[in-house]
């Protein structure tokens, strides 16, 4: 990783060398920092001076006039470094320590194509996110960080949890893939956040369109593909510690990572801990469903949380084989806004306001453990890829036990428990018979086992098995003209288990008598699904302009909750009812992407048109069940279109301006909510960014000032039970810099970020708390410091 510049130490010895003449001599030595062996043959290049080190690593530059000079020292296998030397009578011996290169620059392809070029050639419309972007824009959660990308937004659950939304679709319609394996948790849940440590990620590919061909069911609206990090360079060791503090929710976060490699074996490890208090919103009271809550010092009470993550991987790499095994565990506990969870808005006996850091009821705990092996084997014209994964997601939701309807007060706070085990296998063969074709065939199989517990029933226990086979060919018609076409078939089986209430309900019979019945909420049922998906696309590169067009059909299997829910969703004041007759969702989409990039500016547009044959939709009916409004899963035809615009230009060398806009139109064209939009439709939104790169400023190296101004239009298109949301403008500022604190070490990276500069009170239409009229977080100052070593 070229940006992880492992620097050299620069040390001026204190013994002075006097010189009688007006010209001086620079004497120095270049050593490897690892073992202090001399670096022979290193080049020292200045504007008018040049030297090569001897066997002992020493070099001499003669006839140098007094002044300040800059030299670049390079040596094979080492990070080049530029140093500055003040030449005067006090000049001593210059010692330069070179660090070995920490990582392999990139996966070197035999064809010699750069990764950028390869992405241009693939007709699938995708967006690549670099570690630099993640570091510059890091927010509280991974998805909040990524929401700066046009077309990507989030559903936030408080300050510490969020889930991905791509072009207005989220939940199980976006697949999140990490190290080749689909992340499987309770994605369907409104209050579920993505259980992935956002630190230590180097590369994310986002596909903003149907991608079932490659990723199977669920990738119907898009994919967030978190790719494995680059393999460290041989005989290297590197690491970094990041410390983060935030004012709005009093967050303190620490993340430390190391990686190293001998010749063929390598490892990586990371520990992250974050602890945050209740977050503050710019309002004193919240009015929800005719209940009014006063907020204590603007704190959204009980939204505190903590997160502890650990990951470790060990790998082996040789000419033909690359294999890495990843272990990771993400553990979090976070509170829900106390007044709007549970059957009724509660002013409980818990003193929520006594501390803004404690996590009282209601809260959730989540533990997500994963082990994944990802291996590639190159055999002649074939490259085989194997991904084998096991993950276990354990989630508990706790609320104050309270009676509801015929349910007596439960004996404990454990309202819901979800325990999901997922086994995944991917096998892929990439066959390159000649320069023109790249034929990829593969199989994905997955088995899920879902268990439930607790006194509140929402979805039944179920297991699910899916298997899919695909083949596609990327054909080079011309070096600038590529075609990709592929087809896939999937089979899936869902087996749901029966469930009976643990308490009796009162039933008034027709004959006037009364019976007490343990109601059945779910049945034993086995359902099979089959589906064909396909995709075809073209990419054409004309000098600085890339054109892409792609048409695809994707699908998503119905989920157990969509098929078989039958219970009160306490946190949402509603009764949810599944529908066993649901078909798999099918979606057809046409994507176009045009990108024009020159040195001074770039311009891009990516429109899409999308049609759902049978979008699964949780429809609020006019019916009641025990005084709770019944929401029923139904299917409707949906027509959507929209897209993103982006422009970027560099003015006067130091100033970069970026602008982007995103828009989605959605309309149900059949079903009970015909002519309505879809829930959580993001409004038209634009982002203007200015990035000014200063020259050295005091002790700040490479200082940058970034201003992000987001302008979002009102969302007037809503569907019951949503509220219209006003437009807003929010300004975020950040200052990034490097600081050379330790002369002989790598510079510190620091970032000061000021979110919501004017403490604007605004509502995010796609926030989980929007339905209960909770505004977005108020002003927040965060300070992040990264110490590399």
């Amino acid at each position, binding site marked *: 990783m070229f940006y992880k510049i492992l620097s050299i130490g620069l040390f001026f010895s204190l013994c002075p060398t006097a010189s009688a003449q007006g010209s001086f001599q620079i004497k120095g030595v270049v050593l490897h920092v690892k073992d202090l062996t001399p670096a022979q043959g290193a080049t020292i290049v200045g504007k008018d001076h040049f030297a090569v080190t001897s066997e002992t690593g020493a070099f001499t530059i003669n006839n140098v006039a007094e002044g300040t000079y800059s030299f670049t020292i390079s040596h094979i296998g080492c990070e080049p470094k530029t140093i500055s030397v003040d030449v005067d009578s006090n000049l001593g011996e210059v010692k330069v320590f070179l660090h070995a290169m920490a990582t392999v620059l990139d996966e070197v392809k035999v064809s010699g194509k750069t990764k950028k070029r390869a992405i241009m050639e693939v007709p699938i419309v995708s967006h690549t996110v670099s570690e630099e972007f993640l570091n510059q824009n890091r927010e509280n959660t991974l998805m909040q960080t990524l929401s700066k990308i046009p077309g990507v937004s989030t559903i936030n659950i408080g300050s510490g949890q969020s889930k991905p939304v791509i072009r207005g679709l989220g939940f199980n319609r976006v697949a999140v893939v990490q190290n080749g394996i689909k992340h499987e948790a309770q994605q369907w849940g409104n209050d579920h956040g993505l259980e992935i440590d956002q630190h230590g990620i180097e590369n994310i590919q986002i596909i903003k369109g149907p991608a079932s061909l490659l990723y199977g069911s669920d990738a119907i609206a898009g994919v967030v593909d978190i790719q494995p990090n680059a393999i460290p360079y041989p005989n290297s060791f590197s690491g970094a510690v990041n410390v983060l503090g935030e004012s709005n929710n009093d967050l303190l976060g620490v993340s430390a990572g190391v990686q190293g490699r001998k010749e063929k074996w390598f490892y990586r490890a990371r520990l992250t801990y974050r602890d945050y208090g209740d977050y503050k919103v710019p309002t004193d009271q919240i009015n929800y*469903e005719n209940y009014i809550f006063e907020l204590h010092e603007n704190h959204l009470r009980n939204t505190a949380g903590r997160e502890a993550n650990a990951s470790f991987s060990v790998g082996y790499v040789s000419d033909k084989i690359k294999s890495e095994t990843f272990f990771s565990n993400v553990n979090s506990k976070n509170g829900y806004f106390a007044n709007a969870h549970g059957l009724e*808005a509660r002013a409980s006996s818990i003193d929520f306001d006594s501390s803004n850091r404690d996590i009282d009821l209601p809260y959730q705990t989540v533990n997500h453990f994963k082990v994944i092996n990802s291996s590639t084997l190159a055999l002649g014209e074939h490259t085989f890829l194997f991904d084998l994964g096991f993950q276990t997601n354990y989630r508990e939701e706790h609320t104050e036990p309270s009676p509801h*309807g015929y349910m007596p007060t439960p004996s404990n706070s454990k309202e819901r428990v979800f325990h999901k085990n997922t086994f995944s296998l991917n096998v892929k063969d990439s066959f390159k018979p000649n320069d023109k074709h790249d034929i990829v065939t593969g199989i994905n199989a997955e088995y899920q086992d879902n268990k439930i517990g607790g006194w509140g029933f929402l979805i039944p226990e179920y297991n699910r098995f899916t298997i899919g086979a695909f083949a596609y060919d990327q054909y080079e018609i011309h070096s600038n003209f590529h075609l990709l076409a592929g087809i896939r078939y999937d089979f899936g089986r869902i087996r749901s288990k029966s469930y009976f209430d643990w308490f009796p309900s009162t039933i008034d019979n027709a004959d006037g008598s009364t019976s007490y019945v343990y109601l059945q909420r779910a049945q034993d049922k086995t359902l099979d699904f089959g589906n064909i998906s396909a995709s075809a696309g073209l990419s054409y590169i004309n000098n600085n302009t890339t054109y892409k067009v792609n048409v695809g059909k994707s699908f998503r299997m119905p989920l157990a909750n969509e098929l078989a829910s039958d219970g009160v969703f306490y946190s949402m004041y509603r009764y949810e009812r599944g529908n066993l007759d649901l078909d798999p969702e099918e979606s057809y989409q046409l994507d176009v992407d045009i990108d024009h990039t020159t040195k001074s500016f770039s311009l891009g547009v990516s429109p899409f048109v999308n049609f759902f044959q049978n979008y699964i939709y949780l429809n*609020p009916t006019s*019916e009641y069940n025990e005084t709770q409004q019944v929401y029923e899963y139904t299917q409707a035809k949906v027509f959507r279109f929209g897209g993103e615009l982006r422009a970027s230009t560099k003015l006067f060398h130091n100033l970069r301006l970026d602008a982007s806009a995103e828009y989605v139109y959605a309309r149900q064209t059949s079903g009970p909510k015909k002519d309505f939009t879809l829930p959580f439709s993001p409004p038209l939104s634009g982002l203007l960014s200015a990035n000014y790169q200063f020259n050295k400023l005091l002790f700040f190296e490479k200082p940058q000032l970034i201003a992000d101004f987001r302008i979002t239009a009102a969302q007037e298109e809503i569907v*019951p039970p949503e509220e219209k949301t006003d437009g807003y403008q929010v300004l975020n500022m950040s200052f990034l810099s490097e600081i050379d604190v330790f002369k002989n070490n790598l510079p510190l990276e620091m970032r000061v970020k000021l979110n919501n500069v004017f403490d604007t009170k605004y509502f995010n239409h796609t926030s989980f708390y929007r339905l209960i009229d909770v505004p977005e977080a108020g002003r927040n100052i965060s300070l992040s410091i990264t110490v590399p070593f």
Partner: protein
Amino acid sequence: MKFTLKHFYFLSLILLTAACSSDDSIDKDQEKPTISVNYTAGFPQGCAMLTKGETYNFRAMVTDNQALAAYSIDIHHNFDHHTHDDQVAECDLGAIKSPVNPLIFIENYTVDEGLTSYEFNIPVTIPDDIDAGDYHCSYSVTDKTGWQSRTSIDIKIVE
């Protein structure tokens, strides 16, 4: 370059045209129904005292711009003071206590098709053997589209 820009303009035009030509004139129901007890005959009013053994007519006015669908009445205890209502008055609550045999009244009703205004009137007899104390009376109403409105009223049941 010219070639490229021309395409950009073209595509932007399509996008804009499409964005602006969306047919918003369709008459879709965007209004929630309303529910009110704020009239003379509305019952119960905030902080009302209900006596055991008596029969009361629970009455509220519900309206909608298009068509009402259903309403519900939910009476449950507030012995733990879990919340207060959205009515104007703040009532004096009794001491916090544990329920022994609280009144549970959970009923749903439908409104005749096509009505935009309706006053429901449900007689409920307060049983003699239930716990006296603070209760909530929650009303909710839906329209045909699936919009819902709710209101809740603090009441007290006395001997």
